[in-house]
């Protein structure tokens, strides 16, 4: 019966206004949520457990404030919640984050990992495949659907459409939105989550080789041209050719 791990990251609500103060983003006023694709990862992990048995551990890397997203995951139905962190860590680059998460997955004894295809803050999509490589596992990314038929059969984009790929052995699956509906926490789940204990563990991380220099608002776009009425489409078409040179 598989020991299933799902990665959940705490990120600003995607509706939040992102303010820059000086040369850093100021997140002091934002509301924090589970990164949207991680919700699909949680749902897929729970479906895997329902099909094959075992247990689901939600794992996050972050300071104590990240306990909230673990409790949210618990309310949805995961069995265990674990946070990996060490106050001595400085700024972590992707190498550090992946090393710590891979180490934590080893400590948990995870055999299959679900995570989001990209986190809402970084938009990177590096963590899932990077962890799989460190663990020496298979990985399938941007998965829109998973079937559990003995092993895992994942549907992922492929040239010209999508491919159904069978994965045997340990694997990391990064989840896209797809067609699955995510379940909501119920009252019992919320009560259980309140009392749930977060296991806090540490891990070794390599020194960072990428450091943040500055953060800034996106470059302002010069005001565009605005027209009234459908007939102006003819003029816009000419401008697309002669001014913008895009057609």
């Amino acid at each position, binding site marked *: 019966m598989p020991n299933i791990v799902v990665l959940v990251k705490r990120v600003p609500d995607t509706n939040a206004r992102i303010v820059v103060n000086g040369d850093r983003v100021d997140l002091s006023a934002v509301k924090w949520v589970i990164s949207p694709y991680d919700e699909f990862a949680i749902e897929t992990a729970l479906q895997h457990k329902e099909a094959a048995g075992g247990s689901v551990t939600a794992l996050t890397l972050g300071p104590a404030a990240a306990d909230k997203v673990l409790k949210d995951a618990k309310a949805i139905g995961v069995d265990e919640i674990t946070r990996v962190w060490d106050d001595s860590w400085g700024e972590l680059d992707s190498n550090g984050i992946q090393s710590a998460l891979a180490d934590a997955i080893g400590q948990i004894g995870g055999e299959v990992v679900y995570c989001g295809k990209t986190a809402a803050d970084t938009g990177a999509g590096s963590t899932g495949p990077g962890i799989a490589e460190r663990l020496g596992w298979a990985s399938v990314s941007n998965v829109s659907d998973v079937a559990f038929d003995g092993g895992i059969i994942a549907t992922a984009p492929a040239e010209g459409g999508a491919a159904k790929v069978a994965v045997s*052995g340990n694997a990391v699956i990064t989840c896209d939105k797809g067609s699955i509906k995510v379940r909501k926490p119920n009252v019992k789940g919320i009560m259980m989550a309140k009392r749930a204990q977060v296991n806090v563990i540490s891990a070794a991380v390599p020194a960072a080789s990428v450091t943040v220099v500055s953060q*800034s608002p996106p470059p302002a776009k010069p005001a565009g041209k605005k027209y009234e009425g459908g007939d102006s*489409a003819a003029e*816009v078409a000419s401008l697309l050719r002669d001014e913008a040179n895009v057609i």
Partner: protein
Amino acid sequence: MSESIIIAETSKGAVAPVTAELVSAAIAMGTTPTIIVPCTDSSIADNAGFEGAGRTIAVKGGCFENYDASSWAAAIDAAAPAGTLLAAATPQSKDLLARVAARRGLAVVQDVVAINGSNLTSPIYSGKAMQTVALSGDAAVSVRANIFPAANASGADVSVVDQSGDVATAVQEIIARASARLDVAEANIIISGGRGMGSPDNFSHLERIADVLGAAVGASRAAVDTWDDIPHSMQVGQTGKTVNPNLYIAVGISGAIQHLAGMRSSKYIVAINKDADAPIFAHADYGIVATWEETLPVLESALSAMMA
């Protein structure tokens, strides 16, 4: 950090044009790139020579038949020299790059849109802010398309390396896309419809314009959620695809922050919306305040005349 390695983007059995843009990005980082071409037939590497680039290595192996992240990463890692890795910021290449980077213990910087020596800039928070990072050694870097100029082609100095890896996933079935139309993630021009299109049947008006322009058809989440005929694969935005085309035409789309997250970095944006206060107009280079019913026929005939 004077060595770099470009993992060539391949598509439909050929080296994709964005690879030439990666050469310019590598040069902007002060490096001379070696081009790695993963392939099953090394002749595709003959077109992978560029002014300013070094040699080209065709990495030929059975594993490159279908995408399998672990075997591709192992084969490329074995064949590529040390240095900073560059790849195109497409979903598959970002994934591959992250695996090769992890094999080498390199940090990854994805979706780079500006390079200043070893300082790299990419969007964060879905483009609501930009972040510049400094590299203090070799790294793995993916670069968005349509930002750097394409390097000129030149004769390729190709060496072929036979190298495969253990394939960890088995393709059981390929599900072809229902329509032969381009995917939004691959298109240079996208025309998208939102809830303002009124019904999924009305997307045929967008398809006709897409045919004229060789464009892909996209959709807002409201359109995808409201109509079963509009698949999620067409969705642009936070929980859909992030696109970076030369031209994005938004029709009957209000311009919610989560939609903008997926398309705001498009080079040119056209908005067609009957509500003059729709937020999309703040991001449009060309805005047309009108219904699509009165606008699209004019647009289609003007474009048809121009493209004829």
